[in-house]
Structures are given as C-alpha cells and as structure tokens.
C-alpha cells in the first residue's frame, strides 16, 4: 500500500497495531506505519488457534529483511482463527495491512478494553507528534 492510511472504522494501539471489532469478536493486524517501518515482510508465524492473548502483550513476531518486530494484542481474548495465507504470502501485510494482511481473530474476553484504544484521528496525531 503506497499511501499511508488509517481507516476510521478501526481502533488503534500505541504499538502500531489495529483492531476491528465485530460483535464479540475482534480482528487484529499491524498498521500502515508499522509495515512501512519494517520494509517488505518476509516471514510471519501465527500463534495457535485456541491460545489466549492479553491486551498489551506480544502474541507474535513479524520479520522483514532488516528487522523483527513484536506484534501486540490491542485486546484480550481467545484466538478463534489465524490467517494461514500469510505463511506463503507474508507480503500481504505490506500490500493490504487492514484487509488481506489481517493476522488473528479473537473472541474478546473483556470488550470494555476497547475504550482505552485510540481512534484513527488520535493515532494519526500520535504519529505526527512522534
């Protein structure tokens, strides 16, 4: 994805991860800023379905040629689905970080945690102020 974009329908975590909330489930991934800083992603090893993730804790790593970054869970929950396609095509994280580059889907254990996440405007402001 050539142009920076931060969709309005997502919630954002300060470690450059996003959450799309849908009922009692949420989908996670990394933001445009994160994939741009990494460069072309070469490897992503998803965690196992059934594992739990905790808000603000790392649940995986994403690897480019020059860096490895921790991926942080914006919310807590149990993993119900992982994006297996990223095994063969990790570059989807660069090309479509909010769509085909999604990483895991969880069933939230505490939906109220979403209140502490940023909206798109607040996240963009955080990026500008460095």
């Amino acid at each position, binding site marked *: 994805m050539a142009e920076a974009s931060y969709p309005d329908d997502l919630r954002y975590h300060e470690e450059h991860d996003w959450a799309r909330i849908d009922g009692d489930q949420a989908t996670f991934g990394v933001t445009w800023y994160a994939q741009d800083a990494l460069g072309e992603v070469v*490897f992503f090893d998803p965690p196992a379905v059934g594992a739990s993730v905790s808000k603000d804790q790392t649940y995986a790593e994403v690897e480019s*040629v020059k*860096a*490895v970054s921790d991926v942080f869970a914006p919310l807590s929950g149990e993993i119900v689905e992982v994006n297996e396609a990223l095994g063969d095509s990790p570059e989807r994280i660069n090309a479509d970080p909010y769509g085909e580059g999604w990483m895991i889907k969880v069933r939230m254990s505490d939906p109220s945690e979403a209140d502490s996440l940023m909206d798109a405007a607040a996240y963009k402001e955080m990026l500008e102020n460095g």
Partner: protein
Amino acid sequence: MSRYTAVTEQDLKEMLGAIGVGSLDDLFADIPEGVRLGRAIDLPDGRSEQEVHEHLAALAARNVHADAEISFLGAGMYDHYVPALIDTLLSRSEFLTPYTPYQPEVSQGGLQVMFEYQTAISELTGLPVSNASVYEGPSAVAAAGYLAKLETRRTKLVASRGLHPHSRAALATHAAGYGMEVVEVPLDGAAATDLDALAAAVDDDTAAVFVQQPNFLGTVEQLGELGEAAKSTGAMFICAADPLPLGVLKPPGEQGVDICVGEGQSLGNRLDYGGPSFGFFAASDRFIRKMPGRIAGETVDAEGRRGFVLTLQTREQHIRREKATHNICTAQALNALAGVIYLSWLGKRGLIELGELMLRRTHYARETLGLEPINPGPVVREFAVHVPDLDGLFERAHAEGINPGYRLGRDYPEYEDGLLVALTERRTKAHIDRLGRVVAASREGVPA
C-alpha cells in the same frame, strides 16, 4: 613513520591545518590526565621485517612438528595431506583480505563460496540446512546447546562421555552462562555410549542429548537406537561428527539427528597448534530461523542475474541484539573456504576412497600392534588400546622419532592406561609396522 603509515612532515602540517588544531596532542584533549599512560609502552622496540622473520623462525624451530616425527596423534585434529592448490587459492588477496560480505554486490565470490560450503556440509551430514561456519568443534557443540535451550525452553543437557573432552568442557562452561545443567552418560564395556544409561538420564526436562560419531575413542556409535532413546521425551538429538569418516558412515541426518556439528580442521586446514580451523553446524529445516551465525542464500539481482546474499540476518546480533540466536559475528570464513575447496578436491569418489583407505589402515594397525583394544567394535580412523607401560612406550617411541598417540588417562580415568591411536592417509603400512616394532620391544623390555 613506520613501514605501514605514511604521514610526512608536510602531510602533518596540512592535515592539522585542515582540522584546525595546532598539534597532534590537541586531538587527544578529551582524554583526562588521570587515565593517560604518560610514559612509553614497555615493549621491545620495533624491528625490521627481516629481524622479525628471524625471531619468529627461531621460535618455530623449537617446535617438533608433524613433518619432524611419525605421528599417530589425533584426538580431534588430524594430519591430513592438504593439496597445494589450497595454499595458492587461500593466499589470494581477494579471499584473504576482504571484510564480511555486508555489501553483497562486491562480495559475490565470498558469498558463493559460502553457498557452496553450505551445500557440501549439507551433503556430508545429510541435513538440509548448514550455516557458513562457527569457530570450531567444541564451541559448535555449545552453540547447539543454546539452540536447544531456545527451542525447547528446557533446562537439562545430556552428553555422552564419548564426546570430545573439550566439547564436554566447553558445553559445561557455556551452559553455566545460559543456565542449563549438563549430565554425563558413561561409555559401556566396548567404549560406546551406554544405551541404558542414556535412556535413564533422559527425562521431560532434557532439552538435548549429545553424542559424537565416531566417538572420541574412535568407536562407531549406533546413532539410530541412541536417537530413539534421546527423543523419547521430546529432547533434541545432537551429533558432533568427525567429518571425513562421514564419507563412509551413514550420515547423521539419516539417523534421526536434529543438529550435526563438528570440527572442520581435517577438511583442508592446517594443524596450526589448534587453530584457527572452523566448526560446521547443520540442522533440519525447522531450525533454520534459530541457527547461529551467517547463512548465504541464493537470489537474483535487479537484472535477473543469479546472485548470493547473507540471508535471515534478523537472527543475528547486529539486528536482533539481545534476542539474537547467538552472539557470533566474526566466524571462520577463510577456513571454511579451505574446507569446501578440499571437499571439492576430494570429490564424490575421493571422499569414499580416502575413507576406505583410512578404514583399512586403521584395521591393520589395530590388528598388528599387539595391544589389547579398549574398543574392539567398528572404528574408522582412530582406536584406543591398553598399554601396560605408557611411559616406557613413549620414551622408546620418541627415541625413534615416533609419536604413538594420545594418552587417554588425563581425560578418562576409566582408561588410565589407554592410548588413542589415529591414522590418516599419511600414515603408511611402513610407519605402522615401525610403531608395532617399538610396541613389541617395549613389551619385551628390550633395552631402548
């Protein structure tokens, strides 16, 4: 001005002027008085190249080297014949003087060498992935232990006493750092790893089991059954191998071994009083992102031409820092170059011919020396025997310009009267017969 620097009076004047200081001392103004040396370094004055050469030659002349005696000394480093073309190629500035290939466009020679070396080691060990070298054998064993820790998160390492004493020692030293316990498994009556003892030592907290092939005493180990016992609780099975015997021995990768490491000196490298040589490190595919050290990978350039780069660098210290798979930076690239040239020189058939030659001569030596074997089972290039009067044997042998081998007692109290005898293709039947006569004379108490 020395012979390596070139600052003339004129240069100095111009350079200080450009910098904007009055004297050379001004450049060291940041160094507090309290820590300045304030005197000359107390070392002998520098000498001309000729004088340094004479001094070093005089020191070298006081060493009894492998051409000055008939030596059966092995125990981890071996006197193989290294072809002249290795000397020629290794002395090329283009191989000797470049830096690590971080700028791949101007390092394709070195990177392709690494790729070819990795291929050769993979073939030898029967495992699909090799790195571009680590320091040497024993520290490669320690590095494998670290990988086992990262992979399994368990805290115990089990090591056969068949492992080279230096490997066991290095493993213990490193393990004390990364927080693991090392438990040793004894050898059985035939000087092979005691299978029952190994099975008993392995539990749910065992990260890895280490054996050596052939083991330190030269015994060919039964890797298949050792591996089954090792992996019964989910531990990794790690084999330290002597590379040349792998030409005739079933490769560790075909016997359930997860990681194969070893000492590469016998592959085209000098004895050099113990170093530098190289360590090889090969593993199953699933460990590729946990391997230590550099790895060269094939790719293409902007015009579609085949090329090579250092790859998976995010494992390494310069990127991953405290989470790196190992702290290694400088490895043994030049020595690994000698290794791949040597393996290419031997070639597919030469490796087998050399192995078979060593097998036959070792067999002949064991049969004719007239000493009771410690390991009567299959051996390839080295074996151990009981010697009733070791001191007497060594004294006689030395008088005849022969070095009978390595005394086991220092490392193996269980073989206090043991002698480790190594054969390479440089040890002929005539040499073996001479050793046999010395042994016979020693036994009969014939005056030396």
